[in-house]
């Protein structure tokens, strides 16, 4: 037997042996879309209906102990578009940096008083580049815009690298999950974070609904 064949076979198989991934998918019941209607009078010069009702989405994530994150620190983006935060909710892993581009034609002033991360970007336009923020503590960060009182945004700083945002209908899919015992959580709102215990085995496809 040639040794190189055995090595190649082992090499080809290793991924399957070492990376036995599970998948969880399902559907989360989302709350109704909320919108504020008093904005047109408050912001003169803005076209009417400049912000439609925002459909709050949920973030589903796996909590547990994972090996050290292999993900390199990335930059996430929380934009201001059509006088709303885009996305409405942004899950990131601890240590991620986020920038806040202004894609509107008006000033915005993004700030947060959350204990996890207090910051105030000041007023800036599309052309300005405000400072980026690194979130190194896990928790919920509530975003506001000083100028546009109706704007709400949430940055969910998670320890886990396994998270996803649902679509507008509440459907989600988590892939490449390691086997083990974990808690699956769905962050719907501050007061509503249902969770389910899951035991994952290699190659398992789990259906979990919230």
């Amino acid at each position, binding site marked *: 037997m040639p040794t190189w064949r055995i090595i190649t076979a082992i090499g080809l198989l290793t991924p399957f042996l070492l990376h036995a991934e599970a998948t969880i998918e399902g559907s989360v019941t989302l709350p109704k879309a*909320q919108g*504020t209607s*008093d904005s047109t009078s408050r912001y003169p010069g803005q076209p009417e209906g400049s912000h439609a009702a925002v459909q709050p989405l949920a973030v589903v994530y796996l909590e547990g102990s994972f090996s050290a994150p292999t993900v390199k620190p990335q930059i996430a983006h929380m934009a201001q578009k059509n006088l709303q935060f885009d996305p409405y909710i942004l899950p990131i892993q601890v240590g991620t940096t986020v920038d806040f581009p202004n894609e509107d034609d008006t000033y915005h002033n993004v*700030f*947060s*008083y*959350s*204990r996890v991360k207090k910051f105030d970007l000041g007023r800036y336009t599309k052309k300005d580049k405000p400072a980026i923020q690194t979130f190194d503590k896990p928790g919920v960060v*509530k975003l*506001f*815009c*000083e*100028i*546009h*009182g*109706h704007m*709400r945004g949430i940055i969910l700083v998670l320890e886990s690298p396994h998270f996803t945002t649902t679509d507008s209908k509440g459907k989600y899919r988590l892939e490449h999950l390691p086997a083990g015992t974990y808690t699956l959580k769905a962050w719907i709102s501050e007061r509503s974070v249902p969770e389910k215990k899951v035991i994952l085995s290699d190659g398992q496809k789990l259906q979990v609904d919230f």
Partner: protein
Amino acid sequence: MMAVVLGTLVIGLIPTHRSVTRNYRMLLERQARKEMDSFFQLQESRLATIRQKCIDLSHSVRLLAAMSELHLEDEDIYAIAEGEIRNIDGDRFLRFLDSSGKLLVSNDSWIGMTQPYARTIFESRLKKLGPSLASNLDAQQMGYTTISLDESKTQLYAVIATPILDNATSLLRGVLIMGFPIELEGTIKNQSHTPFRIGIWMENALYSDDLSPEEQNLLTSALSHQFTGHHPLEFSLPLSIHGHGFLVFARALNQLSSFPTAYQIQLYSLEELEHQLRELASLFILLAIVSSGVALVLGLFFSRTLSRPIHNLVKGTQKVQSGDFSTQLPILRDDELGTLTRSFNQMVEGLALKEKFHSILQVVTDRKIAEQLISGALMLGGEKRVVSILFCDIRGFTRKTEKMPPEEVIQMLNEHMTALAHVVEKQGGVVDKFVGDLIMALFGAPQSHEDDAVRSVACALEMMSERKRLNRDSRYSLEMGIGIARGEVVAGCMGSEQRNNYTVLGDKVNLASRLCGQAGPGEILVDEPTWLELNQKYRSEPLTDLKLKGFSDSMKAHRILIDS
């Protein structure tokens, strides 16, 4: 009359009194309401600015963001608020409650009351009130509270609670509390017409700069009775302080508030009303006195002019009733009473005349006949009756009176006839007529008795004795002869319709006349039927040889024997 006057006045006084009181109270109530409205509006206009400021502050995004964070320090929240607040001046007191109504604490003095003592009290009240406030608050609400700064000074504070709402989620994130002192005096007093005192009632206590401590105590006890159990929107209440009447008006200032209900109290004095009522009463009394006086005078006047003549008329009537037909009343007036008096006099004259007729009739005919004539019992025409007829004349009358003057003759005859007529009457007979010296009497007409015959004889005898007496006692001495006959005659009023008299007709009448003619002086001759009826009551002797003109020889007669 005086009673009527007084009664009318009293009856008039009572509804007037009531009406005046009611109208005054209505006016007062209207005025009180107007003044309360203007106080309310004044307060509103003063508060409008600060209320708007609170609303603006409650809409601040940074404040909302701060209140939304559960882990933010109280001090941080106040620090953020500091950045948001523009132009908060004066002794304003700012505090926050979280979404459950818990008070967020701050030691910063610039947004608190300058006196820590007052601050502590305020905060403790907020702590108590907070949870209920937070659960009920959906819009800005007002409340009132008083804080005693020291022993003498109590300051009234208005408190505005503004909810901090997250529009996106409609969740209450917290409550903004703003308190500031308010003054009541000099607010509207200058504009009102009726002086009144003002105060605020809340939490079972009364606050006022206006009232004396005594008034305050009385008012407090009166109001606490009113407020036990229920909280009306508006009411009024009479009150008495030291015997003076007052009217209290109350209106809730913050009815639909989560804060305890505070009432605006206005105290009106009823002194003016009482004064007016007193004046009214004295006016009525004066009127009563004056009109009683007038009534008295009028009464006297009327009595003089009306009742006296009427009284005289009544007296006159009584006199006439008692038989005095000569009564005539003087006519003093030329009006209805005069006419009445004249009529009265005429009536009395008529009565007198009637009486005269009556008495003359009685004189002219026998009384019994007269009465029957008057009563209408006797009519023209006659009836057959059995009657005793008595004729009596004077013997030798013509001879005797030849030489006498006429007046003496009449006097003598009158004396004679009076006496004899009296006897006839006494015996139950009726004088038919006088013919010169002759008197004709009837027994049995117009009415009869059982013993008419006996009566006729008794009459004859008494006539004789009466004449004897007269012969003795008077100037004249005369002798009579009497004849009596009894039988059926026709009796009735005979003559013409215009003039007739009651008499009898028949054979027996002639017989009596003849017998009388036959009788000698002092003799009584009776016919057989009369004698038969006598039953020998009187002694008599039969007569023989009686020759009477017009009668047959066999006529029997008797002479009654007279005992001298």
